């Protein structure tokens, strides 16, 4: 049986630190996306200015900071907001979160969910890309005012959580797509599932048109942050999942695990087994970002309350066969 444990846990970025760096009071530190960078880790993340709200809705923006690799000391003067939100009426006008990072052709690309506000439901989202401004890193530029992954017959609303992996000369994007809005608890609650698209260039994507991960809880299970790493002869995916129902105690995300040999067909476990194979040390963490380094898996993740308590890191131990 597969086992997943988390060791050497430490908190590396809190709301208070981000508030000091940005110079205004910030809420939530979300969605770590890390690229090694010489002796440093450059971490992109999402946060919200408390002053940046209307009707109680906040706007998530993208930031980056650098850490010393050995000590996780924050490098001073490493940095600030790295991109503006979208123009009026465009898909990312009301925020950008979560985010993932990949270097393509020696240029960092950030894939993110861009948020719009609607009337009958609170919001919708589609997936965009930013490219690093090579003249002024770590600032980023928009290649397109529109999204790179948009709505179609199967993806009718709310797409997010993009993560891109290079595999056999192609780019695989894992993302989530909304399946229905549920109004049984009063206000509309979305259900969303992990899906995939394939690309040669990172800009033109072809969706494979199916849900990748079967439900561990029930049909109203929400799945997010699909993070994939090579393991044995195949691949392990760690993802975050929860119930979409307001009264359900499983509404807080927990980590799920799935296995594939081809990135397209995945097997996963029922909720009870998920709890047995995932160590309690992972409790309260979500939105994993994994980096393989020196034979170890370094992970970055959100702490409880969707990053209300900050971002942490640790060493992930995966053992056994799926």
């Amino acid at each position, binding site marked *: 049986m597969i086992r997943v444990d988390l060791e050497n846990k430490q908190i590396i970025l809190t709301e208070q630190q981000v508030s000091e760096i940005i110079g205004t009071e910030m809420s939530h530190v979300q969605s770590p996306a890390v690229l090694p960078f010489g002796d440093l880790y450059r971490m992109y993340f999402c946060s919200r200015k408390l002053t940046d709200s209307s009707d109680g809705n906040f706007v998530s923006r993208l930031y980056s900071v650098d850490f010393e690799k050995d000590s996780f000391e924050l490098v001073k003067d490493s940095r600030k907001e790295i991109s503006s939100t979208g123009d009026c009426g465009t898909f990312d006008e009301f925020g950008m979160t979560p985010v993932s990072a990949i270097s393509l052709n020696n240029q960092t690309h950030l894939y993110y969910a861009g948020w719009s506000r609607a009337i009958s439901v609170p919001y919708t989202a589609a997936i965009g890309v930013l490219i690093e401004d090579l003249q002024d890193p770590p600032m980023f530029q928009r290649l397109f005012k529109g999204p790179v992954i948009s*709505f179609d017959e199967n993806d009718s609303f709310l797409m997010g959580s993009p993560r891109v992996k290079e595999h056999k000369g192609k780019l695989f994007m894992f993302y989530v797509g909304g399946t229905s809005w549920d109004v049984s608890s009063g206000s509309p609650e979305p259900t969303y599932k992990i899906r995939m698209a394939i690309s040669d260039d990172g800009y033109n994507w072809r969706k494979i048109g199916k849900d990748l991960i079967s439900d561990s809880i029930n049909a109203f299970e929400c799945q997010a942050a699909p993070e994939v790493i090579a393991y044995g002869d195949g691949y392990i995916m760690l993802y975050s999942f929860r119930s979409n129902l307001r009264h359900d105690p499983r509404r807080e995300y927990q980590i799920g695990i799935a296995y594939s040999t081809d990135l397209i067909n995945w097997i996963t476990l029922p909720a009870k087994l998920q709890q047995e194979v995932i160590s309690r040390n992972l409790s309260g963490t979500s939105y994993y970002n994994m980096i393989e380094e020196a034979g170890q898996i370094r992970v970055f993740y959100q702490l409880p309350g969707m990053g209300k308590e900050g971002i942490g890191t640790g060493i992930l131990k995966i053992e056994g066969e799926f």
Partner: protein
Amino acid sequence: LIWENLGLICDAKKLPFGQGMYCQSPHAVDFEEFVRVFFTTRESDGRNLYKSYPTYVDFSNDFQKILSYGTYPLVPLGELGTFDEHGIFPFQPFKDKNGNLLATTTGWSRRVSTPTESSIGIVKSNDLGNGFTRIGKGPMMAPLHHDPFLVADGSVFYFENRYHMFYISGERWIDGPESKERVYKIRHAYSEDLREWSRDYVNIISDVIDEDECQALPTVMKTENGWLMAFCFRNAIGFRSDPKKGYRIGWAESQDLVNWNRIDKKHTVLKDHSNWDRDMQAYPNLFKNKMGTFLLYNGNSFGRDGFGLAKLKENL
């Protein structure tokens, strides 16, 4: 070229369903024995907002007589949170390469920072046009890459092994005196399978008013020596109340479907003496059958009173 006015042929107040408000964006299909004209009509939700629903009316081939009205609504609006939950307008029928009848729908949903957003959906008929079902809950063509918002008005036809679509794409929102106003332009895309569309991302019709000119509802017809497009265009601000700034019919011609020359002065659609199109001519649809070459279109207030017809005097 002169288009003779044949008057208002579908009167919104005489519809046997709906609220007698608007017959918008007529699209004619030749059924040989008769002409079926698809259009959309509006219902108020009681809060000064409307929802549009598609339906149709059947005419004799010379458009002199209404034979019957169709199913209403022809397609239900979309589910909660989907692209067409707050209305379908326009409804644009076309035939696929096997002769099956389909239609693009422009679906509308309401937003917070702007009044609306839109995408193009697709529906298919399994009973020769009496009923249509949607292919999936989401749109066929949505904002993507250099089409950042307001993808609408998809006019599709099959020609030389591919589907061509002329559509409109939002360029920017600008501040109007009462609300945000949109600027949109006509563009072209093509597809092999009606699923994946390759978009040129080029505004193909030059502006004659200014850079904020809004262009809508392209309709394209093959002529003896190329292609003819009719569309409508207006100013970005003031178009609702000032007839000089409202929609009028524009024209363009092309040899290759890619490069278009604007030829507004070559065509004149004569206005009707009864004034239904005195202040506005909008949402054109070019149509040809054994009785002649026709232009169906809307008049004042975006088709509040219904739609009318003009007939080309000579051959194209």
